[in-house]
């Protein structure tokens, strides 16, 4: 999608009161909830929310982080009980006190935070509470394994070993197991909360194939996503949520109109303009660096430049970023920071003054933030040495630095001493970036920082990246969203199998070109481009 400047410039936001799309013709409403409210502490997650979905339709739920989508899905899946309101299934009011209540009604859910048991096998997870029984009514483990193998094969999954422990699977494979488990119950209503957040393109193609098949069989599929392309690709109707309320349901709505409804304000063109490149001054130079998963990568990143790194997941991006940050061993090659050869044995080396690297990782929950600690503590964690005197924290200085950074990044928060875990995903990401900015790095390695972040926050993060580049920071940017890379980078390196397969320079970088360069096989690339860039 290109920035819709024409839309952004239109004087009136679309009228949320325009006629609601009714259920598709001849299709029976299966889920109908109204007046749902739910509060956590003082926060209203659902506020008189309603939703209606029919058999044989794919219904997308969109909204910013914290709009109440996940809470609604949990209420429908029996994971939490709403404080008020009614849920009707096939016209009958129901109480969903626990997941089995939903299961009995044919409602199965893929929750955003997966519900797999890590130290049990794929087979045990897929067939939990319906394991094949053998002698004396005891579980027959061999038959359980065979049944799981058949199940996976039936869904066209050949690469997941039913005997493997969940803990040993990649995030994407876990997501697939969770999806297969829900679909294998032949649901009448399938709820998918951010099912694609950890999938790569080819897996999204697979999931959408499954969703279309279910729709053909008359299943009602309700899903949430932050990726507009996916929504447009597959949803029959789109319901917009804001602040825990239903804003509108539409058969057709384009992204900029939806964004206005989701945010309640107008977002200017999604992608900001790239700052001009200053005279080239190398900040980070890799010469044939290699390590686990990385096979001889060379590039030069200049001050003030955004260098995009693209390609399909699992082709060495993550390893390259960890290697550049000293978190993974470099087995060959040379690394130069600001013209000086450096040897990085640990992230500590990478953060040293003369090097000045910072890595913002993708999984903010496990790789960076201390969720139970305050926003202030999280922000100042990387500069403790600078704000202590004789080992004692200088509180006022800490507070001032944290306050300034939170304001600069526009972190929406109840206060600096609130726990980071209470913030929405996008704001957590800002805190993590803020921590690294306080360390005053000169080179930023940003690894998929906008994944799972809502549109408005994405826009803010994009502007932040541009500001940082304009102020002379060198930025290496990996994103699983090719569209994002195409718009935010001065140059893009496409990685395939641990090497750089292509390099492109702005202007004229397109998402299609990035995806095409990432895969070799042309037939496959066409299928992928259809999903990634409709």
């Amino acid at each position, binding site marked *: 999608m290109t920035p819709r400047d024409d839309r952004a410039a239109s004087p009136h936001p679309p009228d949320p009161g325009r006629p609601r799309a009714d259920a598709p013709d001849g299709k029976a409403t299966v889920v109908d909830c109204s007046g749902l409210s739910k509060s956590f502490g003082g926060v209203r997650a659902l506020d008189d929310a309603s939703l209606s979905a029919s058999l044989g339709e794919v219904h997308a739920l969109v909204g910013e982080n914290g709009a109440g989508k996940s809470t609604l899905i949990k209420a429908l899946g029996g994971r939490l009980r709403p404080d008020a309101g009614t849920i009707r299934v096939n016209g009958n009011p129901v109480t969903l006190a626990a997941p089995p209540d939903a299961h009995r009604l044919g409602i199965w859910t893929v929750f955003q935070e997966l519900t797999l048991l890590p130290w*049990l*096998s794929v087979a045990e997870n897929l067939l939990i509470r319906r394991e094949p029984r053998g002698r004396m009514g005891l579980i027959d483990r061999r038959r359980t394994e065979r049944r799981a193998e058949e199940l996976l094969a039936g869904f066209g999954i050949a690469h997941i070993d039913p005997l493997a422990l969940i803990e040993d699977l990649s995030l994407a494979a876990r997501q697939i197991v969770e999806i297969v488990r829900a679909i294998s119950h032949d649901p009448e209503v399938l709820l998918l909360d951010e099912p694609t957040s950890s999938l790569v393109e080819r897996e999204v193609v697979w999931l959408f194939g499954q969703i279309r098949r279910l729709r053909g069989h008359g299943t009602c599929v309700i899903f949430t996503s932050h990726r507009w392309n996916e929504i447009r690709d597959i949803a029959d109707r789109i319901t917009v949520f804001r602040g825990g309320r239903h804003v509108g349901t539409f058969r057709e709505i384009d992204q900029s109109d939806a964004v206005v409804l989701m945010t309640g304000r107008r977002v200017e063109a999604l992608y900001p303009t790239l700052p001009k490149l200053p005279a080239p001054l190398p900040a980070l130079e890799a010469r044939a660096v290699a390590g686990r998963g990385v096979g001889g990568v060379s590039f030069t990143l200049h001050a003030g430049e955004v260098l995009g790194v693209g390609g399909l997941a699992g082709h060495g991006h993550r390893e390259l970023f960890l290697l550049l940050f000293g978190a993974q061993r470099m087995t060959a090659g040379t690394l130069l920071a600001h013209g000086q050869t450096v040897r990085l044995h640990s992230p500590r080396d990478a953060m040293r003054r003369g090097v000045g690297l910072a890595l913002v990782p993708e999984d903010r929950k496990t790789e960076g933030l201390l969720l139970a600690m305050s926003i202030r503590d999280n922000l100042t964690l990387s500069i403790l040495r600078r704000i202590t005197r004789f080992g004692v924290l200088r509180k006022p200085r800490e507070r001032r630095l944290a306050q300034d950074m939170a304001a600069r990044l526009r972190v929406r928060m109840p206060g600096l001493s609130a726990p980071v875990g209470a913030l929405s995903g996008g704001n957590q990401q800002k805190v993590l970036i803020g921590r690294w900015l306080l360390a005053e790095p000169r080179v930023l390695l940003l690894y998929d920082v906008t994944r799972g972040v809502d549109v408005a926050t994405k826009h803010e993060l994009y502007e932040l990246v541009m500001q940082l580049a304009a102020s002379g920071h060198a930025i290496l940017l990996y994103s699983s969203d090719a569209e994002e890379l195409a718009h935010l980078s001065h140059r893009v390196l496409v990685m395939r199998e641990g090497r750089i397969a292509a390099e492109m320079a702005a202007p004229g970088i397109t998402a299609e070109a990035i995806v095409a360069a990432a895969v070799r096989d042309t037939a496959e690339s066409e299928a992928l481009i259809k999903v990634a860039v409709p």
Partner: protein
Amino acid sequence: MSATTAGAARRPRWSHLLGQNAGLALAAGLLALSIVVYCTIYYLAQRRFPGGFELTTTLNNTMPLVLAGVAQSIVVLTRGIDLSVGGVIDLTNGLAAISLGDSAAGMLAGSLLVLAVGALCGLLNGVLIAYGRLQPIIVTLATLSIYQGIAIRVLPEPGGEVPAAYTAVLANTRGPVSLVYLLLIVAFWACFRRTALGVGLYAVGNDASAAQANGVAVRRTQIAAYVLSGVFAATAGLFMAATSTAGDATTGNGYTLRSIVAVVLGGVNLFGGRGSPVGAVFGALVSAMIVNILFFSQIDPLYQSFFEGLFLVIAVLLTGGISRFMRRGA
């Protein structure tokens, strides 16, 4: 959708099973090692290898710890801990000494009463933890004292009487009957692991919230775990009554910590979800072997506790290192 890994050779089944039961395998290895060391030291001291008599006495003396270890491990698997194991042993041991009748029916009735009291103790723990939403460590620390207190009330002085026939069945000194009980424990667990409740124990220990989302009745499973723990602790109390032919309401006091040691040596993860009570059986036998080894090494009994601790640290470091190595190799 599997272009990168389609058709890749799968790891064989045994390799998966070994990986998933690494704790159990290591505990078995540790037991084998400790038996070899014990036999060597025994031979050096006695100029002969230990025989049937040594086997019988060792097993009879270790059975209570084996049972306490099983009791503890079932709760640990659910990510809990049962500090009241020692208190339940005190109480059931004291009760056994005054309630076992002389007739076969009397012995059976007395035994069932003792087991029922153990189950009741576990039920109280489980209900407080599952419905009272209290920390297992605090609940069972409190009930440990409570059960110890009741035990003293039941049997104020060591004594009472255990029929000789009872001892002959449970703690026969003429042959290693306890081997049968060990096999029964293994058989029990092999079956139990293949029931919905058995899977539920692991599910709750893996991730209680995910287990709940999968339709596992988390609270009932927790309660069942503590009840089972109480029953196994009660069998430990019965065994001790049988071996000593009398009761002592303080005899179980050391068993809380020793059962945790057995669980750790048995490769059961203290954070739940991984391991097996069979491992705890091995762990209990290993700690018995350590005591035997110390005895035959003619180490001053004053230092026994010191060396037991030392061996525990070494064993845990060893198994931890090996399992990390195994995971990396996998």
